[in-house]
């Protein structure tokens, strides 16, 4: 398919646009990437996502789509190679459940651990660790959520490992404990070692710098 029929509006440090990049890469889809300046959003972004005015936005044949998990499902339905979601409806429901859990429960706790101080931070750290432990149960002892190869939940939530580690370094509190969450810890490590995953990641040192700078604002 021609490269100009698929466009991704993203932001270099955003894990949400990273998820979409991973999905496109996994399926070998050519696309045009447009980096958005979030402090000065383009008219194109505002036109394509008038509801949230956020990245990522996937534009396919001039039709825009927003919300990363919805974009992932769309990509999976249009391009059938290297499927993200399993075939069985119950397994699909589980995958959707865990992707949603990661976004709704793990991420806000991590963000709070990063941005709050004192007692609020302590509570957030506790909550983040609890939710990560729950996420671990979703693995059901498998190597990846997708089984032997990565799937929907891995792409939706795999970035959390890197960000949680970075957050832990910056705030000086460990969030992912290999002792209490051994399976989750292995999963994050294995996921980040996959070549296509590694290739799309923003440069680690630049990412860390960016996060450190962001942290000083809190």
């Amino acid at each position, binding site marked *: 398919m021609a490269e100009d029929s698929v466009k991704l509006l993203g932001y270099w440090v955003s894990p949400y646009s990273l998820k979409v990049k991973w999905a496109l890469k996994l399926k070998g889809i050519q696309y045009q990437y447009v980096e958005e300046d979030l402090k000065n959003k383009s008219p194109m972004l505002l036109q394509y996502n008038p509801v949230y005015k956020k990245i990522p936005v996937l534009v396919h044949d001039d039709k825009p789509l927003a919300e990363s998990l919805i974009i992932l499902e769309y990509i999976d339905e249009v391009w059938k190679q290297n499927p993200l979601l399993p075939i069985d409806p119950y397994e699909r*429901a589980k995958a959707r459940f865990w992707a949603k859990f990661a976004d709704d429960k793990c991420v806000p706790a991590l963000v709070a651990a990063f941005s709050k101080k004192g007692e609020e931070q302590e509570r957030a750290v506790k909550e983040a660790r609890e939710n990560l432990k729950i996420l671990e149960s979703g693995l059901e002892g498998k190597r990846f959520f997708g089984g032997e190869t990565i799937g929907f939940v891995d792409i939706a939530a795999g970035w959390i490992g890197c960000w949680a580690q970075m957050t832990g370094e910056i705030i000086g509190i460990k969030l992912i404990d290999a002792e209490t969450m051994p399976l989750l810890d292995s999963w994050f490590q294995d996921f980040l070692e996959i070549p296509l995953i590694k290739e799309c990641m923003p440069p680690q040192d630049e990412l860390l710098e960016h996060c450190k700078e962001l942290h000083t604002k809190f």
Partner: protein
Amino acid sequence: MAEEVLVFGAWGSPFSRRVEMALKLKGIEYKFIEEDLTNKSPSLLKYNPVHKKIPVLVHNGKPVAESLVILEYIDETWKDHPILPKDPYERANARFWAKFIDEKCLSAIFKACWGACWGEEKEHEKAEIEHEKAVKEVSELLQFLENELKEKRYFGGETVGLLDIAANTIGYWLGVFEEASGVELLTREKFPKLCNWANEFVCVTAIKENLPPRDKLIAYFRNRFGAGNASK
């Protein structure tokens, strides 16, 4: 093939009603278990240990939680009367608006109806300003849905679909919140299409049979959240 379908829900919850609406639309028999949310059953806690919430669908012993996840499961398992369109873009669109309703609309509606009445007493003027802001926000959000409806009879087109079911909060519960709190949000003059849609929606058999009694629901919300945010 013997099939067991259980739905754990609560009579007044739009979320568990969504599940029942979808099952009814597809003609699936199920057993409903009413949960006392102040005293959750061991079964509910077993089937949804992560969130401990309703609704939960249990199909042949396998539990599925989160109403929108359940709707997709129902559509993929029982193929009659599909609730999602075939086209991937249209499917993505339906999912987008369903998520929008759940993540943006509900909290805004609650805030507009009952926001300033929760918690401590606030100065009247400050509460008024916050109330106006909340009403304006709801108006903007409803406008998106009004535009999305276009000239269609239902969000799903000629028949009700996943988005119509997800919009049950707008189609029925919103009217209940308005009456319970005295705050007007979904006016016919601003949202003619949405009002027409709501009227059509509640007349669909599978939907109508799954709407909790209006008076009972109004009384419940008045009781729980107070007389509401209407200008005094």
